[in-house]
């Protein structure tokens, strides 16, 4: 843990915070794209330590939050009506579909299992040859290699009763969607370090040029985050915009070529619907036609009518950084982690849940 504790060094954090205070001369709005970064910012109380001129805004980088309602309804349908063993990462099972969440389906008797790796799901399929096993393959570029690998393993091992319900989304198109929104006032980005560890940093150069914004590839520990913020503020104050890599101890410019190969073998880039935001062109992965036997969407040919989102939920505005969670009239009232209206209040990566869990009434506390 020494490797991690160095990045939680209170003195170093204080030093960077002091530098931010010295550097900043006017208000700046910076978006941390990734939900993991949002979680770390609020969990460590960093937001309260930043000078008021630096406004952090939380981006669409919570894969659970942006998984479309319709896909959750499909997962529920497969678990309840088709009798499949529905496997999922933990925080996906609480997210409400139009009727219920997978957790509620489990309570009603559906076989829903929480796993840590899709390879476990392949094993379950091998152990249950008379049942269909579906892995709800959610995530950004980070989880895509493992999900793709599970398909390769299933094919190699001749496991016909395994498939994935893929809901992969990509970070660079999300940044574009945020910047293309006329209401957006984002002036700089902290890019998600672990996504770049897989994909490298090349995809971000065109974004820096097109939108003339600083992008700093940033890690998740307190020292990473305050350093990433400082690097962004320095660029903003100088009127510069380029790509910087704060997380160079993990992120190589070329990323992880082996992981990229695995992704490319199984997935192809396609238009994707983002919950609360809508369809973003070429913003997700879908299973390649040659692996259609492992695509639960095709295999079960589930056609479910699209249900409407809650009219009171402003998740889309929160995910694009136009509104902060506490600016939602329903925040903490009609929408709580116990009774969420939208996904950002459910997942621990979600901006609304992170604020609700960690920052609730902090103004009162700080007073």
């Amino acid at each position, binding site marked *: *843990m020494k490797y*991690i504790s160095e990045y*939680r*060094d*209170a003195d170093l*954090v*204080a030093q960077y915070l002091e530098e931010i205070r010295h550097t900043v001369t006017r208000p700046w709005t910076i978006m941390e794209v990734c939900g*993991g970064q949002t979680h770390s910012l*609020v*969990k*460590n*109380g*960093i*937001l*309260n*330590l930043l000078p008021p001129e630096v406004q952090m805004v939380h981006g669409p980088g919570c*894969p*659970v939050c942006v998984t479309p309602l319709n896909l959750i309804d499909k997962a529920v349908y497969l678990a309840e009506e088709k009798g499949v063993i529905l496997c999922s*990462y*933990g*925080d*996906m*099972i*609480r997210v409400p579909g139009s009727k219920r969440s997978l957790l509620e389906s489990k309570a009603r008797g559906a076989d829903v299992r*929480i*796993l*840590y790796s899709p390879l*476990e799901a392949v094993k379950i399929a091998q152990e249950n040859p008379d049942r269909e096993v579906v892995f709800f393959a*959610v*995530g*950004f570029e*980070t*989880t895509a290699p493992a999900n793709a690998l599970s398909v390769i393993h299933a094919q190699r091992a001749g496991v016909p009763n395994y498939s994935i319900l893929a809901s992969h989304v990509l970070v660079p198109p999300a940044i574009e969607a945020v910047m293309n929104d006329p209401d957006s006032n984002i002036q700089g980005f902290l890019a998600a370090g*672990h996504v770049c560890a897989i994909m490298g940093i090349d995809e971000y150069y065109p974004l820096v040029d097109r939108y003339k914004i600083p992008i700093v590839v940033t890690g998740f520990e*307190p020292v990473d985050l305050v350093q990433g913020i400082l690097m962004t503020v320095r660029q903003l104050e100088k009127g510069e915009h380029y790509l910087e890599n704060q997380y160079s101890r993990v992120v190589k410019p070329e990323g992880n070529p082996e992981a990229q190969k695995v992704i490319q073998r199984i997935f192809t880039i396609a238009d994707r619907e983002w919950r609360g935001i809508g369809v973003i062109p070429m913003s997700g992965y879908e299973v390649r036609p040659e692996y259609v036997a492992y695509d639960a969407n095709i295999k079960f040919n589930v056609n479910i009518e699209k249900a409407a989102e809650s009219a009171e939920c402003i998740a889309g505005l929160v995910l694009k950084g136009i509104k902060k969670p506490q600016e939602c009239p329903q925040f903490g009232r009609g929408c709580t*982690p*116990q009774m969420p209206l939208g996904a950002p209040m459910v*997942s*621990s*990566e979600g901006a609304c849940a992170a604020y*609700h*869990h*960690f*920052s*609730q*009434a*902090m103004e*009162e*506390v*700080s007073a």
Partner: protein
Amino acid sequence: MELQCPMPQLDFEVITLGHGSGGLLTNKLLETGVFDLLKNEYLDQHHDGATFTLQGPLAFSTDSYVVSPIFFPGGNIGELAVNGTVNDLAMCGAIPRYLSLAFILEEGLMMQDFWKILLSIKFAAERAGVQIVTGDTKVVERGKGDKIFINTSGIGTLHPQAQISKSRVQVGDRILISGNIAAHGIAILSLRQGLQFDSEIQSDTVNLNHTVARLLDQFGEKIHLLHDPTRGGVATVLNEMARDTRLGVEIWQKQLPVAEDVYGACELLGLDPLYVANEGIFMAFVAPEVADAALEMLRADENGAEATIIGEVVAAHPKQVILHSSIGGKRVVNMPLGEQLPRIC
């Protein structure tokens, strides 16, 4: 530890529905198994209940144990069932005396496993100094239970110096914790999920009644409140205390004792150790003037080597628990919503 005691000569290897029928098979299981092993003057009476005399104020507690898997690193459901109720009594400031023990067995449970659990129960009861004086055994059909469920109820006499009550918690009280947090929950989770870490994380299940009694012997009424942070972890205890007393709580992340391997596992799984279950530690809200001495005493105790003062009770922000992060930030620590679920990334 592996308990050594040969299994009695029985003509069955698994529990069947007949063992819960109340007839000959039940008698054989109880006579040859349970009663002989847990032998004492009360069980020897073979009556519907135990009769005894106890003087002074008493504490009474009950709990049911449904842990899965039933065997885990550092213990099993049997010792958990004894230690859990013993500790609940100790948290009331009581000296645990007598326990009841009720089994719900699932048809098909291996007798060998049941025997191991019984041995652990015997050992845990001896270590805690309690007697198991009455009990019950039921058997349910295969598929209607999870191998074995255990209920224990316990009765204890209040320690003469104990004045444990939420109403006695005051502003300025220091919050002591007797040992490393989150070990039990992570031990169970890692086994349930088939996760392997560099070192095997062990449950911390242990009886705490002797440690608590020594603390009460020395500091008596200066110990205002005791609590064992089992399900829901430390965060739940602190929130319940703040809510019920309408006082505030401040804790320091740097002071939270977490073993390195448990901390690493929590990081990997995206779990907050503050919310993870414990079995063998307790929290004490103590008057500030005795806090350092109580800490010193705890650290010298077999169950308190890792004890620390994690925070204090304050008048500010009533009903709220605030954590001072190790980098100097602050955040609210809320009640957990339900079972903690691991994050995607």
